[in-house]
Structures are given as structure tokens and as C-alpha cells.
């Protein structure tokens, strides 16, 4: 198998150009889907038989929570690739993931808290799901703080990659926390192997919102990774044309 396509993709000038070209597509598609999903979730979807209109927080809470874990896995994989194959671009991608993931995690915790008040009667409870999600936020913040504490980017890459890889163990813990422990948080109603226990009319806007958030992530990581590439390629010739 020829790996030339991979080497080409991992070359900073090539990646910089490709990311610049695809970012606007991600951005506009994300905006369109998020707007459609917001309208669908707030207006068109039927109210829940138990939670009434309060359940509509689902459309911002679940995609944020999903993205908080997805972004961490992407970050850990990129960090692992960077560590094993010493690819600078992979380390750059991991670094670009952290602030995006942290903001999704904050959003998942905050919207969950707002949702918890009317449904559970409390803003916060130290149960397994909420605590492991809070730990995820600290992992992102710790990762960023660790990177910032090094002057040498290569040492920052290596140290933060180890933290990202160790922390990935928290992702399955978050996912299965509702099954392993008695939690106030409900178990999954969408990602079940048999049949989702949620009505299709409620499910469609959720999928549209998740897709919108994914595209938004695509846009944000493209922009941030372009910045990371420029910061890392200090004396490269191609920079004169790019900048």
C-alpha cells in the first residue's frame, strides 16, 4: 500500500491549504443545520408527555455532551499519532481540539444543570455521570494549562499527549456511568443497540443538531489547526506565500 497520500496530507503546507478551502463549507453547513434543528426542536417537535416543553433543552444538551466526548477521543487519537509517529501536524490537531472540547463540556454541564433544576429539583448532584463529565472539563483545562507551561513546543507536545492519552479512560466511564452506578441521570435513549426509546419526531431534530455540531467542530478545528501550523512552521519557506 502506498502511503504517499498520507505523507502529502500530513505535510503542513498541503494541510494548511486544504483546511482553508474546506473550512467555509463546514461553517455554512453547520450554521444552516443548527438553525434548522433549533427551529425544529423548539417549534415543530411535539412536547414531551412528562416533561412538557422543558424537554426541548435536550436539543442543546445532548449534542454538547456527545461532542464533549467525541472531541476528547479525536484529541487523544491525534496526540497518540503525534507521540508514536512524531507528526507535528497531529500534535497541532490535538492542541486545536482542547479549547473546542472544553467549551462543549462546559455547555453540556451548564445546560444539564439548567435542565436538572425543574426535572430533578436540583442544579447539581455528585452522581457518577455529572462527576465524570466535570472531570472531563478538568482534563481539557489541565491539558491546556500543561501546554502553556512549556516554552519548548516539542516538550509541550509530548507531555500534553501523555495526559490526553491517560485521560481517555474517562470517556467510557462517562458513557457507561449511567449503567454501572445508580445515577440521577437517565440512561441513554438514543444510542441503544435495539431500538431508541424516543419518538422519531423528537429524534430527527436531535440528529440534525448533532450533525450541525459535528460540522461546527470541523470548521473550528480547521481554523485553529491553521493557526497551529503557522505557529509551528517558524522558518519554512512556504510561509512567505501563505502569510
Amino acid at each position, binding site marked *: 500500500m502506498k502511503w504517499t497520500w498520507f505523507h502529502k496530507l500530513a505535510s503542513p503546507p498541503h494541510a494548511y491549504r486544504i483546511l482553508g478551502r474546506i473550512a467555509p463549507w463546514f461553517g455554512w453547513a453547520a450554521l444552516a443545520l443548527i438553525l434548522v434543528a433549533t427551529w425544529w426542536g423548539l417549534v415543530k417537535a411535539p412536547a414531551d408527555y412528562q416533561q412538557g*416543553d422543558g424537554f426541548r433543552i435536550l436539543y442543546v444538551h445532548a449534542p454538547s455532551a456527545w461532542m464533549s466526548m467525541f472531541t476528547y477521543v479525536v484529541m487523544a487519537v491525534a496526540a497518540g499519532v503525534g507521540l508514536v509517529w512524531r507528526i507535528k501536524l497531529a500534535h497541532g490537531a490535538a492542541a486545536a481540539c482542547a479549547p473546542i472540547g472544553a467549551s462543549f463540556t462546559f455547555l453540556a454541564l451548564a445546560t444539564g444543570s439548567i435542565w436538572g433544576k425543574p426535572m430533578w429539583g436540583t442544579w447539581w448532584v455528585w452522581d457518577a455521570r455529572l462527576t465524570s463529565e466535570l472531570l472531563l472539563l478538568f482534563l481539557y483545562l489541565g491539558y491546556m494549562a500543561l501546554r502553556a507551561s512549556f516554552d519548548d513546543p516539542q516538550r509541550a507536545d509530548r507531555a500534553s499527549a501523555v495526559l490526553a492519552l491517560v485521560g481517555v479512560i474517562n470517556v467510557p466511564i462517562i458513557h457507561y456511568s449511567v449503567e454501572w452506578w445508580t445515577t440521577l441521570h437517565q440512561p441513554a435513549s438514543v444510542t441503544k443497540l435495539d431500538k431508541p426509546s424516543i419518538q422519531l419526531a423528537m429524534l430527527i431534530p436531535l440528529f440534525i443538531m448533532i450533525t450541525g455540531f459535528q460540522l461546527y467542530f470541523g470548521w473550528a478545528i480547521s481554523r*485553529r489547526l491553521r493557526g497551529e501550523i503557522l505557529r509551528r512552521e517558524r522558518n519554512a519557506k512556504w510561509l512567505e506565500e501563505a502569510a
Partner: protein
Amino acid sequence: MDVQKFLEMGGYAQFVWPAYGLTALVLVWNWWSARRSETEAQNAARRRNELSSETRS
């Protein structure tokens, strides 16, 4: 569509709207922050190029 009824969100307005508002705020902040991160790196690279071309000439 009854706008008043829609805004009341079946009595959950004080929870639904802040949740959506906060989401919009965080998404916009992330958009701004990612853009700024890219343009700052571009400006820094441009300055480095200018400096290196000055020292060469």
C-alpha cells in the same frame, strides 16, 4: 403560531431560553476565538517574514 404561548414554553421559559441562549453564546465565543487564533498566527507569521526579508536585504 401563538407567539406568547411559544415564549412561555409551557411554563419552562426560565429554563429553556437560558439553555438556548447560553448555547448560542458559547458557539459564538468559540467562533470568535478560533478566528482570532488563526488571524493572530497569520499576523505573527507575516511579521516574521518581514523581519527576515529586512535582515536579508
